């Protein structure tokens, strides 16, 4: 089933709200609440 236009619009909120979308974005709000990540190793 093809992706619905409404779904595409939902995934691109900055098209209709270039400023306010950040406050509603779940990823950015989570990052703001908890911006620290665990360490990792680099391998040669």
């Amino acid at each position, binding site marked *: *089933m*093809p*992706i619905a*236009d409404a*779904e*595409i*619009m939902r*995934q*691109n909120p*900055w*098209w209709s709200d*270039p400023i306010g979308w*950040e406050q509603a*974005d779940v*990823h*950015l709000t*989570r*990052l703001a609440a908890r*911006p*620290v*990540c*665990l*360490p*990792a*190793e*680099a*391998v*040669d």
Partner: protein
Amino acid sequence: MGKSTDLKLLVRRALREGLAPRSICYLSLDVLQDVALAGVVDAFLSLTRLSGGSGRRLALLDEVIAVRRWQFAVKHAWDTGVCEPAARQAETWALPDRLHVWQTAGGGEVDFVCGLRPELAAVEVRYQARLDLRKAGGMKRGFPGRPVIVVTRDRLEWRSGYALIPASPLLWALG
């Protein structure tokens, strides 16, 4: 911090740098699970049609591994003119000027690279616990003379030397 967050930070940065909102097209492909490859191309066409933008676009495809063999769908879009062709080689193969997808030499890992050259640096989101510096070197060969940022689960590497910097604060600052 995950890849989706990295992509949203890229969106925010592109907007703040003046890119037109409708020139930034994001699509999470997890909604297309179990869809035939042609469905991915159709989704991309719908995305660009709905955006209404013109000129250069920043196309961000998230959760690409949700679609099996998704690379071939994007390659098909390139071959059929949906995307503009560009003669470019990086690692085993590369895609259009505005959308770069790498498959490592071993074929086991798929790294997603997005960017709008030259305005945005090439970014590789690898989201892995460990960084293989040999593969990061391959990225630098793919973009000779261009800055390359490699993001892993928790660290961000920039240019040579690979000074280990926690990714989230630096991306936060860049945003």
